[in-house]
């Protein structure tokens, strides 16, 4: 299994996520440049990561320009053919803008950028990034965003629930999903979702920032390990 990390101008978590796959997990990992349409040999069964950052500056709505970049044409068709695509933070925003995931990410309820550790609890084990996680056990993962308030209309939200597409909810340290644990006003405490085909994932928290012992938190590494282990089972 190979991994491709897309580099948009303004991506700034590309190196961090690249490092997790290549150095910590020892996986073959390449970078994909936004101006190219070439996926450099990535095939179905491989995985594309859209990293965090401020693609094209995000002076407009976050992700609104990135979705039109040449590489996204290829990412969209890769996803439509069933390829694994994982968007983290800005990557999640781009996936929503590109229509690969439902809903939208609005400005945080307090109108400020928020960077801090939060807890999230897996809501479904029916995805490669959550399959190996312990149900109902909260993970400490940082967030860092100004536009992370997940929103979907009632019908969409009902669909997400019905199809078990909600992957993570903000919770307290014990895994209780409650209002005080919701850092940004996301509807239903939603922190991450997948598409109906369960091959496209988006989440606002940054698991790559909780993936090495140097920073003193490896909760995020569990998502990466789940991806490696369970992508075989799901494929």
């Amino acid at each position: 299994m190979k991994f491709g990390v897309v580099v948009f101008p303004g991506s700034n978590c590309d190196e961090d996520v690249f490092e997790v796959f290549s150095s910590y997990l020892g996986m073959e990992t390449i970078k994909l440049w936004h101006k190219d349409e070439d996926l450099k040999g990535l095939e179905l069964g491989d995985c594309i990561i859209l990293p965090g950052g401020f693609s094209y500056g995000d002076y407009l709505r976050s992700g609104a320009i990135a979705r039109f970049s040449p590489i996204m044409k290829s990412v969209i068709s890769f996803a439509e053919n069933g390829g694994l695509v994982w968007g983290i933070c800005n990557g999640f925003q781009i996936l929503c803008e590109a229509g690969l995931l439902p809903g939208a990410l609005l400005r945080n309820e307090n109108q400020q950028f928020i960077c801090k550790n939060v807890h999230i609890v897996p809501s479904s084990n029916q995805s490669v990034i959550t399959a190996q996680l312990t149900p109902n056990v909260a993970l400490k993962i940082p967030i860092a965003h100004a536009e992370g308030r997940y929103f979907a209309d009632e019908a969409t939200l009902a669909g997400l629930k019905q199809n078990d597409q909600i992957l993570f909810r903000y919770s307290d340290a014990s895994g209780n999903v409650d209002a005080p644990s919701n850092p940004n006003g996301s509807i239903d405490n939603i922190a991450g979702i997948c598409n109906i085909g369960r091959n496209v994932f988006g989440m606002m928290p940054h698991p790559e920032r909780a993936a090495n012992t140097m920073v003193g938190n490896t909760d995020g590494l569990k998502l990466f390990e789940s991806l490696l282990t369970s992508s075989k089972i799901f494929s």
Partner: protein
Amino acid sequence: MQNQSETLVTVETGKKLGLTEAEFEQIVSIMGRTPNFTELSIYSVMWSEHCSYKNSIHWLKTLPREGKRLLVGAGEENAGLVDIGDGLACAFKIESHNHPSAIEPFQGAATGVGGIHRDIFTMGARPIAALNSLRFGNIDLPHTRRLVEGVVAGISHYGNCFGVPTVGGEVYFNDCYNQNILVNAMSVGIVEVGKTVSAIAEGLGNPVFIVGSATGKDGIHGATFASADLTEDSAEDLPAVQVGDPFQEKLLLEATLEAIKTGAIVGMQDMGAAGITCSTSEMSAKGGVGMMIDLDKVPTRQKNMKPFEILLSESQERMLIVCHKGQEQLLLDVFEKWDLECAEIGEVTDTGTLVFHTSGTKIAEVNAHSLVLGGGAPVYQREYKRPAYVEEIRKINTKSIPLNTKYVASAKKLAASPNLVSKRWIYEQYDSMVRTGTMTTNKPSDASVVWVKDTKKAIVLTTDCNSSYVHADPYQGAMIAVAEAARNIVCSGGTPVAITNCLNFGNPYNQGVYWQFVQVIKGMGDACRKFNTPVTGGNVSFYNQSVLKDGTEPVFPTPTIGMLGVMDDISWHTTLHFKKPGHVIYMLGTPVNDLGSSEYCRTVLGIPLSAPPSFDMDEELHLQQNITQLIRKKYIESAHDISEGGLFHCLLESAIAGNVGFDIETDSNFRKDAYLFGESQSRCVVTINPQKEDAVVNFLNTHNVPFSRIGEVIKDEIKIDAESFGKIGEYTLIYNNTLGQKMAGVQN
């Protein structure tokens, strides 16, 4: 002033541009003729305080600026460069953006962050950490809150998008900053030794490029603006404030570092104050060469910009690059990849003169050397006199203050002081974790610790300055600022190696202000020699004072110390939080019956000014050296230095961070409020696993380290001399929420 070349230039023109009569005459003498308006503008910005350091350089040169680890001398390059081992060097610098931030807090602070990062990556180093040191007025004033909101949002906007973590800093509130806030930003980068780029122009005929953003009308005469008092009319100087574009800066960073790898670059300098003028003159003067520049080739944002506007524009996110002739395409390709402007605007000459053309006509011709610091720029030694207030403050002897026995009420009031509470309302708006090297997010310590990837070492960073101490006694206050910075690094497990400074003062033509400046330099110099932390550079910001109805009021002298430490083995990292009940609490160092300049005096007793806390530099160094030993022997579980708020606040912070309580006894040889809340220096609190206690005591005794066993960590309560001070949860709420409530305008 429609056509500069025809404008008659006189002494009066010079004065309008901020030059003195004598300086104007000196320019005429250097040139052998009267300069035209463009040339005079060039001199006016290059000889401004901001670019020339004319009123400070004499004294700055007395600071210790040499050391085994220093790879460039202070002021030689855009930032200091320190060898950290493993073939790596650390470039770091702190700089002020006070005046722009006072007028337009968002953009002022944002471009301050952008400017300091450029100083780092123009040397070829990749910034891996940012810090900031902020001073605001009274937080209960709506004006202050507007400034706090704007400055924090500006730093957040720029730093987060640029993708470098803001890992630390400090924030203080004091009425002296009500009008003139201070915004000091620090950047720290890593580069392989020998792979740096110098800000030098060399090689006859080598092409000169301007890269990055196009040049606009923003920030014209910003350097001159920064070199004058802030007045109530300053808001009209708004066009002197620049507008930042962090996205462009991120692209410029990546493109610049990639361009360096091509080998095509001879020298490079970022454009900050005085834009093209400053970068062309400094690079030329350094290389002993000249440049021929065609201003028509400079990409501009609007049509019909006047030559002096192009020359003086402080548009952000630009660099000047001298390229090896014949290798231009390598440079062009990189900047094309990153969709940035890259325009050849001239070439290096051997004349020593800068010649600027537009429309085929020469519009200015000035000698590069005559413009710059260390060359022809004026150097002044201002007169100084000890201001009367110093004597008044010395008379305020805190020992004669009647004992205040309302200890619990005092502790709670002090815990809610905006200067002591958690700054999370601020720092949670900064991305502190991007690049995944910040070790102190999950394991907080007195200084910020950032892992240097691919090594087993970390850099340890802090900014420190208690300006109340400095105001009370500039010499001692400056020494304490250096000592506290070093103590923070030592308590975190690092070794202090060098400093950068940001010297914020009032008007240097005020003799009292200049006395403060001289005393600060002397104190800083003495302390830096003692701690073996040479000064690698920094920034001087004068004219920080407010114009009031009945005269001017300088800010407290605020010499911010940005200190770099190295931790060769990350297993030495020591955190500040109490680990678990049962651990024993020791205070290292000697307490003194002293309440001088304490937050307790100001907040609880209502005594705004008093003598600085007692301080002995030999004791301090001795303490620090032994803390380092305790850490390396793995003897201690936590370390936290005693500073603002005294012993009580030190214990409180460690307890809150560990979500535990503490039970201590005070020493009856001291007045209890001084023991709990006094800020006498050279002390630190450590906790010890009881199993190691004997070994630690033995070590402390053999090494003559004064210590007191003051108590132990308990579950969730604060107890002092058997009296309950309340549950830790109560204090945690105060600590975490007060600043947010204040910012929401809640008065208490």
